[in-house]
Each structure stands twice: as structure tokens, then as C-alpha cells.
């Protein structure tokens, strides 16, 4: 794993990726700090983080688009497969390298609250709590981006899918207010999701029985609940959309609450998507 980590890191710092990523992140946070903290003379640095987190839509794809797709394109994935290291070590090594690249600009950003504290009252625990949550949220999105990247061998496609996925996640809470909250609406939405899930499973595993089985089980469960007690399904879809939002949980930190469940949620997302990335790499061996 260390070999992969070292190799990836040297790759990022030899190419432009790490620098472009850092430049974007620093620019976003810098402009935010300029407007909020300096121009409007607000002492809360966490608001800046809350304000700039839309920037993830742009910077996460920059960071993750080549992580696995590039290996495929250059056919170096064959080398990785033939080396005496496990697929999980490859994925985790690559992921930690991404985190390290992500940490570099964050270390610079971590100085801002201290600088502001020289000129007035800054409540540092909220600032650093939010910064930590900012890191965790970014880490979760990097895991999502890594997984999306593992599905394709084209960097452009990887970036092109990651971007709307994060954008959708960003707006999912806003959208949740506009979607149908009725029981039948939720039931239909869940059935559509189940069918889509079936197609995805079928694409990934090439196993028809598993794919159809999973879809049918979910659809039957939804129908059963719907006919037994339709009130339980009311508001299900907006709820799901709100729960899935990575950003919504981050705002709790900005408001001054250190929410452990959110941290656990981020870690779960990271582990889940890294697991999927490993499976996606393993799958390449099977077809």
C-alpha cells in the first residue's frame, strides 16, 4: 500500500493535478474569506466554508478523474493486477494519496482563522470544527469520485459523471421540497429507483437473477407497505433525498454543532464507496 501511496503522490506533484486542485480550493476559500471576513468584517470563518462548499462540484472531479481511469487507459492496471498486492491495498493507497493532496491546501486554509484572530474575536472551536467537517465531507466526495472513476477508462467521462452527481447532491435538499410527498408518489419513485438499481447490478455483475431478484424484492416490499399502510410512505422520497445530502450535514457544523453522527455518516460513505471501487476493480478480472 505504501508503494502505491508514494507512487501516486509523486505522480500528483509531478503533474499539474495537485497544483490545479490546490489553486482552485485556495481561490474559492480566499475569495469567500475576502468577501465575508474582510469586506463585511464577519468574524465567523465557518460561514466562508459553508459558502464555498459548492466549489466541490468543480474541484472534486479535477482531483479524482484520473485516479483509476488513467491506469486503464495506459494499460498499467495490468501491472497492478500482476503485482503481489491486494486490490484493496491499491484502492486505499490511491485514496490516501488523494486525501494527502486534499490536505495540503487545507493546511494553508487552517491558518486563516488564526490570522483573523489577531485582529478580533474569532470563536476558534467552531472554525476548526467546521474545517474538520469540511475535510470529512470532501473525503466522502473523493471516495464517490474514486468509485465513479473506477467505472470508466476515460477521464472526461469520469469527470463528466462526478460533476453532476455532486451537483445533484448539493441541490438534493432544495429539490426535495419540490418532489411529491404523497404515498403513491414515493412508491412510484422507489419502484423506479429499484428498476434502475436492477440495471446497475446487472451491468456490474452480469448476473440476471441477482439483478432482477434485488429489483423485485424491493418493489414487492414497497407494494406490500403501500397496501398495508400507505401513510408510512408519505414524505419518504423527500426524506431520502435529504438524508443522502452530504452538504446538509455539513451545515450543522457551520451552525456551531459538532455532530458526531455526521462524521460517522461521512466515514460510512467513504468505506462504502471504497468497497465499491475495490469491487469494480475486481470485476475487471472477471470479464
Amino acid at each position, binding site marked *: 500500500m505504501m508503494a502505491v501511496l508514494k507512487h501516486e503522490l509523486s*505522480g500528483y506533484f509531478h503533474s499539474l493535478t495537485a497544483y490545479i486542485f490546490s489553486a482552485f480550493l485556495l481561490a474559492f476559500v480566499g475569495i469567500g474569506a475576502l468577501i465575508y471576513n474582510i469586506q463585511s468584517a464577519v468574524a465567523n470563518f465557518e460561514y466562508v466554508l459553508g459558502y464555498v462548499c459548492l466549489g466541490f462540484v468543480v474541484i472534486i472531479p479535477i482531483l479524482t478523474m484520473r485516479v483509476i481511469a488513467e491506469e486503464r487507459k*495506459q*494499460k498499467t492496471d*495490468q*501491472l497492478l*493486477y*500482476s503485482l*503481489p498486492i491486494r486490490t484493496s491495498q491499491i484502492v486505499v493507497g490511491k485514496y490516501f494519496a488523494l486525501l494527502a493532496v486534499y490536505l495540503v491546501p487545507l493546511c494553508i486554509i487552517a491558518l486563516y482563522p488564526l490570522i483573523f484572530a489577531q485582529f478580533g474575536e474569532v470563536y476558534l472551536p467552531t472554525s476548526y470544527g467546521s474545517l474538520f467537517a469540511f475535510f470529512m465531507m470532501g473525503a466522502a466526495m473523493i471516495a464517490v469520485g474514486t468509485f465513479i472513476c473506477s467505472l470508466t477508462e476515460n477521464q472526461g467521462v469520469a469527470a463528466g459523471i462526478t460533476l453532476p452527481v455532486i451537483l445533484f447532491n448539493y441541490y438534493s435538499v432544495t429539490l426535495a421540497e419540490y418532489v411529491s410527498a404523497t404515498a403513491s408518489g414515493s412508491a412510484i419513485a422507489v419502484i423506479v429507483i429499484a428498476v434502475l438499481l436492477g440495471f446497475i447490478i446487472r451491468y456490474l455483475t452480469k448476473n440476471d437473477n441477482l439483478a432482477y431478484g434485488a429489483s423485485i424484492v424491493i418493489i414487492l416490499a414497497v407494494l406490500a407497505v403501500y397496501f398495508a399502510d400507505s401513510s408510512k410512505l408519505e414524505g419518504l422520497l423527500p426524506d431520502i433525498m435529504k438524508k443522502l445530502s452530504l452538504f446538509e450535514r455539513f451545515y450543522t457544523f457551520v451552525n456551531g454543532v459538532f455532530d458526531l453522527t455526521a462524521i460517522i455518516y461521512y466515514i460510512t460513505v467513504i468505506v462504502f464507496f471504497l468497497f465499491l471501487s475495490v469491487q469494480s476493480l475486481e470485476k475487471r478480472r472477471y470479464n
Partner: protein
Amino acid sequence: MITVEHLTKCYGDFMAVSDLSFEIDEGHVYGFLGPNGAGKSTTMNIMTGCLSATEGHIRINGYDIFEEPEQAKKTIGYLPEQPPLYMNETPAEYLRFVGEAKGLKGEKLKRQIEEVASQTKIEHVMDRLISTLSKGYRQRVGIAQALLGNPKVIILDEPTVGLDPIQIIEIRDLIKQLGENHTVILSSHILSEVQAICEKVLIISKGKLVAFDRPENLEKLLLSSNGISFTAEASREETEEILNEVDRITKWDVETQEDMLTVVTIKTDSKDMRDICRQIFFAFANHKIAVLEMASKKANLEDVFIELTEGESGVGEE
């Protein structure tokens, strides 16, 4: 050293490798021969753990590649068909990464990199970007990578494809050298190459093993296609008349050329070619007809290959 048992690999409905079994001993150079799409690359990819098999087992040095992949992979160095190189790195950086991934550290790593670099003669390009290297040098860097960690088995997938004649000779010499201390398996569809460097040849066709023997034994297999061809200064009728007198031959092709010359090709399964040549010669001499040219033609690996894989239509590698 390597045991392959009932290996089968399907891509959907297409069977790339079907029920392939063979055993490879230590310390020889083995050639893996087959037309395009025969399943060579697939088999090699499975042997090195890059692909899974649909069915079957592969044991390398006693370790099952599917059950204990890490131990098994430590004993293999693999160069895939397209060398897996990071274009924006130098060979030095690249080899350091591969060495570390193979578990080498510190002084040992440094020594090994120097060793494989001098073996593959890439010392003077170690600090140039791989993207600026020629194909021959890239191939060498790929081989150097496979040699790191001193694996017992080295698997090379078409190592000389796309190289110029001098580079081909150099790579062949290198492979021969490697064969002294390692078990080398190389795939190729160039027969002369396999004949030149391999001690044993596996021929596969449509994912099945059709022959596994020493090159010279394979040639003997096809003695039936031994032939004699000669040019006589006579008309077609005269020639046929004389040939009928020679009792050990029954079938021939006759082709008349201008200036009263007739070219005859005879196929025979007799082992004593010399005797037949002598009989033909004297038969014509008795009729005072000059035989201007006579040559006996032995079957070579090319014929074995064509005969064994006849009627194949390549479906594309992998």
C-alpha cells in the same frame, strides 16, 4: 513449477480457453504458439492473476494463483503484450515503484534496480522520461520490471512485436540469457523466433492445447509431409513413365515448364529420404535423362503449425 489444470475461460458465450491442461518444469524457455485469438494472452493473463478463470486451477511453485495470489505472484514476473509503463515517469522512478510494490526496500532495492538495468541495457536512459523512449527501450523497461524481485518464472507476452531486426536479436539474446536462471514462457506467433529460442513449444488453437513438445519432435510428428522436389529435362509423359518404375513412390505432382523442363514434387512418409532420392536419380539416369536439380524438403515448425491450427480464423486476441 507451473501446473495448469482444466483451465476454461468464457467471455459471455465466447470460449477463449477451453479445458487447457499442461505442466511446465523449472529452468527452460517455453514457447507459447498460436494464431491470433487462440487464447495465448488470455491464458497468460490468467496465469499471472490479471484475469480470473471460469473454471480450473493454476499452481505456481505450489501456490494457487486464485487462493494464494500474493505468494504466487511473488514468483512471477510478467510483461503483458503492451508494456504497462507510466509515460510521465523515468525508468528509475518506475522501477522503484514496481520494486517497492514487490516488497523490496533500501539497499536491496537499489542493487536490484542496478542489476536489472544492466541486464536489459537501459542504464543510460534511466533518467529520461519513458514517453521519449523508443519502442525497443520501452520493451526493455517492461522486461526490467518483470525481472525485479528475481522471480522464478518470467512470462513475456509477444516480447518482440514491433521491434526492428537488431532489437529483436538483442531481446532474443536477453531471453536466452534469462533462460539460464529462470523459467521463461514467451508467447509469439512468429515461428522462427520460437524455433530459435525455445526448448519446448506449446501450440494452442481455439483455446485448446494441440501440441506440447520440443520443436524438433514436433517436426518429426509431421514426417508424412516430407517431400522431394526435382527438375528433370524431359516431357511430362516421359517423366511419369519413369516415375512409375520407382516402386516406393505412388503420388506426385508434375508441372511442365518451358524448355522441356518438368518439375516434380513428391510427398512421402518414408523415413529414408536418401534412398528414394537415389532411386529416382538412377531411374532417370538409366533413361539418359538429366536431373538438373533435386532437393529434399523437411517439414518445419511452420508446417506443423499450419497443419495443427488449420482452418482457424482469428477472432482477435483476448
